[in-house]
């Protein structure tokens, strides 16, 4: 290669200096590490768990090894999957009602100061009272088990939606509010074109919290409701397995609950990203 040729190739290729190379390497490492590291930690933990059980001859009714838990998960899949569906149904219904109730109340509160002053304190009281403390009462007064579970899960889940959405509705840009006034916008127009879009990022933040909480609410309510015939969810299976010292099944059910929680969070994060990616700062990736 002659000198002239080398010069030419240098000119046509983009200039990548040492800084840029270091930055690219860091980016690549981060991209890979984000997935590989958690998986590696998981594998190590499982290995350690397995070795501890084997080396110490721990009986499976005290601590089953990961292999046995996994086998149980497959063998008991029919029972566990039915239970999962029940818990999932309660969770999603509760989340839906929490969204409707939370957003509805938030809109009502921002439309009327009187409403907010009258009812907001009670929303706070409902939120701060532990659901385990109210649940037994609810199951006394509500005949339907499903309805009782739903109420409990809703009680836990609605508040983040309510408080985040209220915050969002009130944080519309004040100059834009003035502009809407100048152009004679009606209350409804202000709500629809200004306040609801402003509240969307806040609402989605609340929704992600509420998703996890409605699962917690559903599981806690099931514990309180106790062993009760048909339509039993994962929490009930855990209780039942505990009475029978079927520890592997307890672990299997627990794994399913955790996986469900992760899945709900991931789905809501994806939803949030899809709805905000065009305009909101939180969904942007910036060049550093």
């Amino acid at each position, binding site marked *: 290669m002659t000198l002239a040729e080398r010069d030419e190739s240098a000119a046509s290729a983009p200039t990548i200096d040492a800084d840029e190379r270091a930055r690219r390497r860091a980016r690549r490492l981060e991209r890979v590490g984000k997935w590989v590291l958690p998986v590696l930690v998981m594998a190590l933990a499982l290995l350690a768990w397995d070795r501890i059980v084997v080396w110490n001859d721990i009986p499976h009714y005290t601590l089953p090894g990961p292999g046995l838990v996994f086998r149980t998960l497959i063998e008991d899949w029919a029972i566990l999957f039915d239970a999962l569906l029940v818990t999932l149904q309660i969770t999603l219904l509760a989340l839906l009602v929490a969204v409707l109730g939370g957003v509805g109340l938030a809109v009502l509160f921002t439309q009327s100061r009187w409403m907010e002053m009258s009812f907001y304190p009670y929303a706070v009281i409902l939120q701060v009272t532990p659901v385990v403390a109210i649940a037994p009462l609810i199951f006394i007064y509500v005949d339907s088990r499903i309805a009782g579970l739903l109420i409990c899960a809703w009680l836990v889940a609605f508040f983040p939606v309510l408080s985040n959405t209220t915050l969002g509705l009130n944080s519309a840009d004040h*100059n834009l509010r*003035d502009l*809407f006034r*100048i*152009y004679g916008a009606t209350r409804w127009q202000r709500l629809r*074109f200004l306040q609801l*879009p402003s509240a969307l990022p806040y609402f989605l933040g609340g929704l992600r919290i509420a998703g996890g909480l409605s699962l917690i609410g559903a599981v806690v309510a099931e514990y309180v409701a106790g062993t009760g015939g048909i339509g039993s969810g994962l929490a009930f299976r855990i209780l039942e397995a505990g009475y029978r010292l079927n520890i592997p099944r307890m672990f299997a059910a627990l794994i399913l609950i955790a996986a469900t929680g992760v899945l709900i969070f991931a789905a809501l994060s994806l939803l949030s990203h899809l709805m905000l990616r065009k305009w*909101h*700062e939180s969904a942007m990736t910036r060049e550093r």
Partner: protein
Amino acid sequence: MPSEPARQAAPAPSGAAAARPPLLRMQGVDKVFNGDVVALKGMSLDVREGDFISLLGPSGCGKSTALRLLAGLSHPSRGRIAWDGGQEEGDLGVVFQEPTLMPWATVAQNVWLPLRLRGKSYAAVKDEVLEALRLVGLEKFQTAYPRELSGGMKMRVSIARALVTRPRLVLMDEPFAALDEITRFRLNDDLLALRDRIGCTVVFVTHSVFESVFLSDRIVVMAARPGRVIRELAVDAPYPRTDAFRTSAEYAAYCRDASDALHAAMGDAA
């Protein structure tokens, strides 16, 4: 107690301006906040069809308060503000200090807003929206989101939105204060060109002497504590004004006048 220049000050509108039909009149307006904070005292202002009026003054002189009163966003504590022949829908356009765009809406949707709030569908007013964008040179960006635009471009969208209803009066509250000087000069030029084409009346709040002289045919100099008018200057240079005007001796003389009046206003406040 007012100082010497303030006492000499007498509203002296130019002959040409006085001949124009009136549009809006402010008479002896006071604005008092919380019972004792006097934001504006005894302000009178005649806005005539085709005027370009700058309200010039230090911060706290009540120029933004005056603009909010003109916009109908607040009401005078005393005195009155009246549109000659009444104000009709779409007569008023406003540009704030920030672009104040809806980040979730595209450029075209933002410009559509004033018409949308009057119940007009996009299809029905598409031509007006695109025409407004063409006026500010952004017709290629109609589907962009505000975050994709530079500060100057956002301000242009804001101006397009103010113009889309073809208002008789446009109120501008230090719209270019946050922009760099090169962008500000360009937007000043473009603003005058725009006004030439659509012939609206402008009331423009600024704290820049140069900007007020370049843009307006009347400068209302205001002083603080309490906010009040201390002088009205006529800038009789003809439009269109270009870079040649910006470097002329005439421009420099007007700037000196306005600057002296502003100094009087500041001295008064201290």
